[in-house]
C-alpha cells in the first residue's frame, strides 16, 4: 500500500514515528504550522519554528527517505494577541518561498472570535495575492459548525480565492457538506477521542463520494495516532472497498491537490 500523509505535526513526534510511517507505506508527509501547546512570546519564536519546519524537519525526514512538505501560518489559537499576530504575518511571505512550503496553513478559527477572524482574513489576503494553496483548520467540537460557516464566508468573500485550491480540514458529518457543496476539498482527521474515527470517515466516503477528499492523522503532541490512515485503510478493506478506491483516497487525491503547487514532487 502507498499513501500520502497530508497532515502530520512531526516536530512533536519522535523519530520512531518516521520509521513507522515509512514501514506502513507513507511516501510523503505534509506538515502544517500549528500551535505548540503554549503561546509563543515573540516574532523570533515564530521565526525559529518556521526555520524548524523548512530546514530541520525536512532533513530529519530525509534520513528515512520521506519527502517532507510544510505549510506556513500563524495558528488561530495565537490570534488573540493582534499586535503580535500582525508582526508575525509580516515574516510569513519570506518563508512561503522556501522549497518545501506548499502554501498557507493551517489557518482558520478556534473559538470564533473577532480577532481570530481578522487574522484569518489577513492570511486569506496573503494567499490570494500570491496565489498560494490554503489548508484550513476548522474549530473543535461545539465550535466547529459555526466556525466552518464563518471560514467559508471569509473565503467566499475574497474573489481571488479558488475553492479548488483550498482544503477544509477536520470535517465531520455536520460540516462535510458545507465544504464540498461550496467546491472546497475536504479533509477528515482521524483522532481517537475527537474529530472522527475510521468507521465514521469511511461512512462519509460512502455517503459523499471519494472526489476532493482525503484522510489524515494530524498527529501532534496530543492524543493522536501517526498510523491512523493505514488503520482507516484496513477499515475500508473490511467494508469491501477496492484497492483502486483506497489508492484514490489515500494517495491520488492528496497528490492531486498538493500537485497544484509546483514544489510538490513525489
Amino acid at each position, binding site marked *: 500500500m502507498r499513501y500520502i500523509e497530508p497532515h502530520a505535526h512531526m516536530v512533536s513526534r519522535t523519530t520512531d514515528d518516521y520509521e513507522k510511517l515509512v514501514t506502513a507505506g507513507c511516501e510523503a508527509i505534509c506538515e502544517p504550522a500549528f500551535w505548540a501547546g503554549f503561546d509563543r512570546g515573540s516574532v523570533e519564536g515564530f521565526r525559529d519554528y518556521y526555520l524548524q519546519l523548512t530546514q530541520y524537519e525536512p532533513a530529519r525526514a530525509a534520513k528515512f527517505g520521506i519527502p517532507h512538505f510544510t505549510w506556513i501560518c500563524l495558528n488561530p*489559537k495565537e490570534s*488573540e494577541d493582534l499586535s503580535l499576530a500582525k508582526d508575525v504575518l509580516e515574516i510569513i511571505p519570506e518563508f512561503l518561498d522556501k522549497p518545501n512550503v506548499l502554501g498557507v496553513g493551517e489557518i482558520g478559527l478556534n473559538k470564533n472570535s473577532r480577532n481570530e477572524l481578522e487574522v484569518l482574513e489577513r492570511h486569506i489576503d496573503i494567499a490570494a495575492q500570491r496565489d498560494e494553496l490554503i489548508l484550513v483548520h476548522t474549530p*473543535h467540537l*461545539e465550535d466547529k459548525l459555526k466556525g466552518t460557516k464563518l471560514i467559508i464566508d471569509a473565503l467566499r468573500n475574497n474573489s481571488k480565492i479558488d475553492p479548488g485550491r483550498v482544503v477544509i480540514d477536520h470535517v465531520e*458529518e*455536520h460540516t462535510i457538506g458545507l465544504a464540498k457543496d461550496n467546491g472546497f476539498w475536504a479533509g477528515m482527521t482521524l483522532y481517537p477521542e475527537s474529530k472522527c474515527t475510521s468507521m465514521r470517515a469511511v461512512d462519509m466516503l460512502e455517503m459523499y463520494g471519494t472526489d476532493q477528499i482525503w484522510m489524515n492523522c494530524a498527529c501532534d503532541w496530543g492524543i493522536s495516532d501517526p498510523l491512523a490512515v493505514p488503520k482507516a485503510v484496513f477499515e475500508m478493506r473490511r*467494508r469491501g472497498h477496492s484497492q483502486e478506491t483506497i489508492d484514490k483516497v489515500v494517495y491520488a487525491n492528496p497528490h492531486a491537490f498538493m500537485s497544484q503547487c509546483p514544489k510538490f514532487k513525489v
Partner: protein
Amino acid sequence: MSELKEVNLVDHGFMDARIKAIDIAAFLDRVQRAGQDNDYRVSALKSALKHLLEQDTNRAKRVLLSLSDPTEEPIPFAPGKGAAGAWQEVDS
C-alpha cells in the same frame, strides 16, 4: 467509487456499538450517583441521545448539530483555547 463488496455491517460493528452504548449508560449512572448530572454537558448529551432512536438516517449529523454552538456572529474575544464538547449559552 467502484462497487462495494457486500459485507455484513452488523457483524462488523455490533460489538463496538454495544460497548459504547453500555459505556454511555454507565457514565450517566456514575454522574447521577455523584450528584453531578445537572452539569450542562450531561444535559446536552441527554438531548443528543434522543436522536439515536429516530428513524431517519443522518443520526450522527443530528447528534453533532445538537451539541454545536447555534449562533452566527463572532464572539468579542476568545475566553480560552479549549472546547468542552457541548455548547453553553452565556450572558453577554
